[in-house]
């Protein structure tokens, strides 16, 4: 394990995982995972498909309760029994499946679970004007120009939908921001915006957990790299310890990929 890249970390980490494990019936999805999420740092979780990355972040965000091990928030052990509790602790998450309600309007999805209200007593109502306004602004800031925030999310394109989920998490993330493959369906420009968001959040002192398969995305922003393989940890590296090429090789599970480009480029015709 590395000791670098915690210059900003004073005292206890925001989140700490100790020997976390998660089973689904007979399926062992995670086993013996330990890492820390510190304020002002981006922790990248890397790994092959099915390595257990999403399962890990669902443990962090209160969706799954770990079968084994301990989760510490600000140094004190916690057990989130619902995502609500994690949210209340300032942990906002972009799930890989986005957690959106297809039939509901964009602005309703944006504020779902954290609706702003206006008025008082029995006349306290959902402040829809504000909600629509904020939604439109936040999406525009991401470079997403939706036709109408009243449009049901189900009719959005894959990338538009993902952008809404990210904008929501960024808007509500208070202390920890967790992003599960946030850029997978995004265009080059939108992906750039998301990377900038991550850097911004980090600079504001949030702890960020970032999952991606793209080494070109992971390397520039990551401070620590947690490597998973088949549910187990292969190690936890600081940025200084790895180059982008090493990272790519590690993300590919150690296989050699350098020849791929040539191989693909080979002229098939003639």
């Amino acid at each position, binding site marked *: 394990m590395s000791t670098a890249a915690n210059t900003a970390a004073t005292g206890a980490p925001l989140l700490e995982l100790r020997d976390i494990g998660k089973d689904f019936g007979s399926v062992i999805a995670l086993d013996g995972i330990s890492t820390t999420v510190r304020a002002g740092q981006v922790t990248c979780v890397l790994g092959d498909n099915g390595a257990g990355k999403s399962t890990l972040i669902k443990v962090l965000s209160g*969706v799954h309760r770990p079968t084994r091990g301990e989760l510490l928030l600000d140094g004190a052990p916690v057990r989130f029994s619902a995502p609500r509790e994690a949210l209340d602790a300032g942990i906002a998450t972009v799930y890989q499946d986005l*957690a959106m*309600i297809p*039939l509901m309007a964009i602005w309703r999805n944006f504020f*779902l*679970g954290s609706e702003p209200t206006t008025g008082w007593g029995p006349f306290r109502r959902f402040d829809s004007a504000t909600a629509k306004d904020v939604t439109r602004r936040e999406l525009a800031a991401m470079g997403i120009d939706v*036709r109408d925030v009243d449009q049901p999310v189900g009719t959005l394109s894959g990338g538009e939908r993902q952008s809404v989920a990210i904008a929501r998490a960024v808007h509500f993330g208070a202390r920890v921001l967790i992003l599960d493959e946030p850029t997978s369906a995004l265009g080059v420009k939108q992906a750039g915006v998301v990377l900038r968001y991550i850097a911004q959040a980090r600079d504001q002192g949030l702890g960020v957990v970032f999952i991606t398969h793209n080494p070109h995305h992971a390397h520039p922003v990551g401070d620590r790299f947690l490597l998973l393989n088949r549910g187990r940890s292969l190690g936890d590296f600081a940025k200084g310890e790895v180059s982008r090429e090493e990272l790519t090789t590690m993300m590919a599970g150690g296989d050699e990929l350098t020849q791929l480009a040539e191989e693909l480029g080979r002229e098939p015709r003639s």
Partner: protein
Amino acid sequence: MGRPARADERVAAVGLWRRLLVKPELGSLIGAVVILAFFSAQSQVFRSLSGIANWLDVASTLGIMAVAVALLMIGGHFDLSAGVLTGTTALTVGIVAVRFGQNIWVAIAVAGVLALAIGALNGWLVTRTGLPSFIITLATFLMLQGLNLGLTKLFTGTVQVRGIAEAPGYHSAELVLASTFSVFGQQFRIAVVWWLLATAVATYVLLRTRFGNWVFATGGDEVASRNVGVPAARTTITLFMTTAAAAWLVGSITAVRLTSVQANTGTGQELIYIVAAVIGGCLLTGGFGSAIGAALGALVFGMTQQGIVYLRWDADWFYFFLGAMLLLAVLSNRAVRRYAEAARR
């Protein structure tokens, strides 16, 4: 790019009329208008004020329940015990008022507590066990049906409770729940007011409050909404209690109005509530629908039921006509939506 573009080149211009037609309520409004036109054209009594009062009366109690059931369906659940629960509350009002000689308001309060408890139990069982609400509420439906009969016979020795009109406080209760009011010289039942009130409140809650947002979300995708922090279990339990509260209102109206209650009151009505909600545009799979639509669905059903009588069609074929009218209403609703779909956003 990037700024909310009001005049977006990717959006074709669409007339207001088409945009209106696509709303779920307006879809079922078309169904209602078709049925209304159909019967009005053929029966002069149907379209007279007294005829209107008559079919509005039929629609009103049905409508109160349909609106509550619509909320529950939008939230992704069924309540098969809703019908028989109107009987349970009506019988409770009767038994407490007559057998135990209580003031009728006390009896109504007792029935309310009981109804809310049953609703909470339904909701708790559904959220706790994760079993489909269909099967849980079917079990409570059967149990309540048995309780209604068993307890009524235990307390009265017969299958009906009578003499509610003699209970203390009856007159004030009658005023609130079972009186009539006059419009253009025609007496309308006060239940119509309750129905409109229920529709208005439900619409407000659905569209303008946080809770309404949660209802749509829980019905649309329970896991996703829990993941973003919606208290799905609480929402579900509240919805079951809302249905129970509506059953309590309808049961109290029945008890006060009829002054005697049969043990099998309400049995079998639960399906009609669901039908009204579905005519009104609610999805059976949850996450979509409207309270106004459900109220209009109840209206379609009420008009059809009485319209057939006014046309003096053969009673043997009553159900045939009822089915045919229902089909007519939903098909015309759908045809209009198809036409308006060009306006779908």
